[in-house]
C-alpha cells in the first residue's frame, strides 16, 4: 500500500494501484446507480415491507462497498476490519437495547424510586 520516501514505486506496486483505480471507477458508478434506484424505489407502488427490506439491503451494500474498497479494508490487515466490525456490533446491540427498552408497554417504576 505504501512505498518508501526514497525509492520510486515498483512496477508491481503501480500495476496494483492501477487495478484499484479501475475498481474505484466501477464502484463509483455502482454507488450512483444504487442511489438512483433507491430514489425511484420509494415512489413505486410496492408493499412497504418489500421497499424497506430492499432499501436496507441497498444501504448496507453501499456502506460495506465504501468500507471495503474506498477505505481499503479489503486490502489491509484483518485487524482493522475486526475493530470496525466490533464497533458495528456494539451499535446494533445499542439499537436493539434501546428498542427493547423504549418499546416496553409497561415499565415498573418501583425500580427507579
Amino acid at each position, binding site marked *: *500500500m*505504501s*512505498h*518508501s*520516501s*526514497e525509492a*520510486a*514505486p515498483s512496477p*508491481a*506496486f*503501480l500495476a*496494483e*494501484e492501477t487495478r*484499484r*483505480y479501475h475498481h*474505484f*471507477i466501477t*464502484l*463509483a458508478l455502482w*454507488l*450512483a446507480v444504487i*442511489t438512483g434506484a*433507491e*430514489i425511484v424505489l*420509494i*415512489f413505486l407502488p410496492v408493499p*412497504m415491507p418489500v421497499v*424497506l427490506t430492499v*432499501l*436496507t439491503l*441497498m*444501504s448496507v451494500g*453501499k*456502506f460495506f462497498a*465504501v*468500507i471495503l*474498497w*474506498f*477505505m*481499503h479494508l479489503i*486490502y*489491509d*490487515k*484483518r*485487524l*482493522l476490519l475486526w*475493530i*470496525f466490525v*466490533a*464497533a*458495528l456490533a*456494539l*451499535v*446494533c446491540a*445499542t*439499537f436493539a437495547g*434501546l*428498542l427493547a427498552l*423504549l*418499546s416496553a408497554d409497561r415499565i415498573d417504576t418501583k425500580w427507579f424510586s
Partner: protein
Amino acid sequence: MSDTAVAHEAPTSTGIDHKKLIMWLFLASDCMFFGTLISTHLLYRKLYPAGFTDAEGHQRFIQNLFNIELTSFSTFILLMSSFLMALAVSAMHKGQIKSFRRNVLGVIFFGLIFLGCQVFEFTHFYHEGLTIQNSVLGSTFYVLTGTHGTHVAIGVLWLILMYFYSFTGKLGGHMGALDVEVAGLYWHFVDIVWIIIFTAVYLVEYLGPNGFWGTGLPAVTK
C-alpha cells in the same frame, strides 16, 4: 491483504502504521457515536410520529418539508467526493502530486456544495417552523444531521490545509501518503454515515401515504 500492502510497512507490533491504526480506532468510536444518534432519532420517530407544531400552531409533518431532490443531489455529491478522495489517495501512493491536488480540490469543492445544501435545508426548515427546541423531531434531526455536517466541515478544513501543505514539498514519500490515506479514511467515514442517514432519516419518510412512521393521528373511518 495484498503483498504490496505489507512490503514497506513500518515495523510495528501489529504490522499496521500507528497513524492508520489510531484513525481506525477513532472511526470505530465515532461509529458508535453516530450509531447512538441514529438510533435515538429512529426510536423517537417511533414514539412521537406526529411531527411538529409551527409558530402559528399548525400541525406539520416532516414528509411535507423534506426536499428529496435536494437531499438526493447532496447524497450523490458526497458519494462522488468519496470517489475523488479514493483517487487522491491512489495518486499520492503513486507519487503523482499534481493528480493528488486536482482530486483533493474536487473533494473540497464537493464538500462545500454538500455543506451549502445542508445550510439551505436547515434555513428552509427553520423558516417553516422546525426548530431544535419545538419538538422531539427537531431536536433529534438537527443534532444528528448537524453533527454530521460538523464532521464534513472538519474534513473540508483538513483537506484545505493538506492541499496548501502539499506546496511546501513536505507532503511526499511514505509518510505523506500515509497522512493523505488517514485523511481519506476520515472522509470516507463521513460518506458512509451519510449513506445510512439518507435511508434511515430521509427515504423512510416517503414510504406509504403518511411515511413509515405515520402521522400519529387517529385513522379516519368513512
